[in-house]
């Protein structure tokens, strides 16, 4: 058997990753119906509560920048991964890609890169509003740190979205994802500070990944939240856990 033709040069494998990511980004740039709500929601909230209803309270402007960043970062991960995977499983596109010699990692990395890009855009827009309109006092290092939290903080939600996408096919996914997204954001204190909530909900908050992301974001904008490494580890754990569960389901059911 002629095995020479089976060898794929490393450069071409890398090329497949680049092409997959490029296609994924083009698809979403051409689908404003998907991108606009994800980008606009957190920014509109911030304008309402962080700017218009906030009477030049610097601390509130910083606090809300962090919490709405966390809120905004969850969506591209959950919806970008979950909805598109559920739709692509339903439409036969994933089946075709699995039959083709597509490197499986290229598919996942393409979507992940897309989510990271959107999360960074959401975070950057919020920063523009916070610095330019709400005049939140932030240093350059803090701005950079928050952008890093946004860009990497999307990953656990990518993994959760991936898992949901393997559980549901087609149009059911957006509904279920909203039922995860909105309550989780509320219960993690992204809309109202946890201190304003019942004691029980405050104590339960650490079970949500978004709570830990919010702690990291608050730390980035200068609030004293104690040690941050436990929260990084918890998020890493969530990411790996969701990924393993999703990979197991994908391998079994496709």
């Amino acid at each position, binding site marked *: 058997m002629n095995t020479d033709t089976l060898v794929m040069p490393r450069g071409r494998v890398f090329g497949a990753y680049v092409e997959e990511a490029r296609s994924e980004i*083009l698809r979403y740039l051409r689908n404003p119906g998907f991108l606009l709500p994800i980008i606009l929601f957190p920014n509109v909230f911030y304008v309402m509560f962080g700017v218009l209803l906030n009477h030049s309270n610097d601390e509130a402007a910083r606090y809300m920048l962090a919490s709405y960043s966390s809120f905004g970062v969850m969506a591209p991960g959950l919806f970008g991964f979950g909805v598109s995977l559920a739709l692509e499983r339903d439409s036969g596109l994933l089946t075709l890609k699995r039959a083709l010699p597509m490197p499986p990692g290229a598919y996942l990395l393409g979507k992940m890169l897309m989510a990271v890009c959107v999360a960074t855009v959401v975070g950057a827009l919020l920063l523009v509003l916070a610095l330019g309109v709400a005049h939140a006092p932030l240093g350059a290092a803090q701005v950079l740190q928050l952008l890093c939290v946004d860009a990497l903080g999307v990953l656990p939600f990518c993994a959760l979205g991936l898992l949901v996408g393997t559980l549901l096919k087609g149009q059911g996914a957006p509904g279920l994802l909203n039922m995860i997204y909105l309550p989780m954001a509320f219960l993690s204190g992204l809309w109202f500070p946890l201190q304003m909530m019942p004691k029980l909900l405050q104590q339960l908050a650490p079970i949500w990944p978004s709570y830990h992301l919010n702690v990291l974001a608050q730390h980035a904008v200068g609030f004293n939240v104690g040690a941050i490494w436990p929260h990084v580890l918890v998020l890493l754990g969530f990411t790996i856990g969701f990924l393993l569960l999703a990979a197991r389901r994908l391998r079994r059911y496709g």
Partner: protein
Amino acid sequence: MMVLDTVLARLRGVRKTYGTLRALDGIDLALRSGEVLALLGPNGAGKTTAISLLLGLARADAGTVELFGRDPQDIAARRQIGVMLQDAQLPPTLRVGELLRLTASYYPNPRSVTESAELAGVADLLMRPYGKLSGGQQRRVQFALALCGRPALLFLDEPTVGMDIEARQKLWAAIRHLIAEGNAVVLTTHYLEEAEALADRVCVMAKGRVISEGSVDALRARIALKRVWCSTQLSLAELATWPDVAEARSDGDRVCLSTEHVEALVRRLLAEDMTLSSLEVRAAGLAEAFTELTREPSPSPASAEAA
């Protein structure tokens, strides 16, 4: 170096069940280089399951599945195949050229975007978004994606389903062109004329098994039945007892008789009924041959009243 009779893909003693449904029941199938194999069979015969095992989309419960001597789930094996699936919806916002560029990136030595598009007759569509194309154009784009990696073996799952005659002829011409270049093809189809037009070898599947395998001619010869229609005073029950009549049924105001010995039957019909009229004799097409082969072993009496 051209190697004849190299087996490119093989199923050996393969079983696959989904829940309680036995989709494949000990199937053997081999595909050699340069060959065009058509898989025919009614829905639920196991065609799609056989294809998905060969593409590595599912694992067999028992038996071996080989693609270029490897496990089809090994990506290196799939780098030599092109795939056109029946119901894959591609991203509607991507342009045809972008889809080709993406798919070609999966292969070690692909055709250029222009060459692939020209081979599939979609060169004028490269800048168009996939979602804006007609059904026939979309199928041709999918064919372009199947051939863009310069594969040695093409899997075409119902390639012309839902196409009008002109679009179908165009796609057939493109497939023939690749076959002429030495590509092997596995084709599943509902259209028997598609198998006749393209295939060297036909496998008829039913209930998870291959029940007939051979050339299109051999398949037709195996079922050498002809059909005789006529208006006659002879009763259907009586005709059914004649030794030359394989099957008798009424068809509108005529009777339809199936037979292997058409001359003897017609001679006897004319002798026994002087008033016989509207006589018509037809050879069975591949369609009838196919129906015969996949018929249930115990036919329900006097069933076929349709048409």
